[in-house]
């Protein structure tokens, strides 16, 4: 599963990807931050189109393997109500060597943020909440002439 309503488990991902062929392990974790664009944040609600998000996360993992020649790429994203400091996303990459591991992990998180249908609603200390603007998905082009 790539989406979870429960706390993300880094150790479980490390165990699942353990591989003696790999000399490099890169982990990226995103956490709920105190401040955004001048506002004090208290929490974030994450929601998703789960079927499309699961599929897109799988596609990004597969594309990372092919693009960078790495051995493992796993992505997990949390859904639901997260308090400050909680992990919202994990990227785990294992590869033979560090250059491709760093490069792939950076590409994977950047691509996740551009392509996966997940939305964050930030809650503020001053009251109220806002959906962040986000990145429009590339609409599918027409197949018709």
């Amino acid at each position, binding site marked *: 599963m790539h989406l979870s309503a429960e706390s993300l488990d880094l150790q479980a991902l490390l165990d699942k990807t353990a591989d003696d062929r790999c000399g490099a392990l890169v982990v990226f974790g995103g956490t709920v931050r105190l401040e955004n664009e001048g506002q004090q944040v208290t929490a974030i609600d994450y929601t998703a189109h789960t079927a499309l998000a699961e599929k897109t996360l799988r596609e990004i993992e597969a594309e990372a393997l092919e693009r960078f020649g790495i051995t493992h790429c796993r992505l997990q994203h949390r859904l639901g109500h997260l308090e400050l400091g909680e992990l919202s996303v994990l990227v785990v990459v294992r590869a033979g060597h560090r250059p491709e591991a760093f490069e792939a992990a950076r590409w994977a998180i950047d691509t*996740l943020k551009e392509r996966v249908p997940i939305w964050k609603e930030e809650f503020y200390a001053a009251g109220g909440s806002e959906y962040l603007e*986000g990145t429009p*998905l590339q609409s599918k082009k027409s197949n018709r002439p």
Partner: protein
Amino acid sequence: MATYEIEMYGVLRRLAEAGVVSIEIEASQSTVQALLEELALAHPEVYDRLEQVACAIEDELVARDHSITPDQRLALIPPVSGG
């Protein structure tokens, strides 16, 4: 006339005050674009957002000229902000 259900996500859900809205259009006009045009009339509060919305049926993104049947639910995907 046929009834179609449209799933709203992200900010659209807040603006429409609903996770799913129902739209009626002529069955002969049943493209994604026709549904979006009718949605804009029935829910003008989401009109400004539709230009940047991607459309999906189940786990597939679809073009706006894609034909749709009443047993399929159209999902509207506003700009994404995960991470």
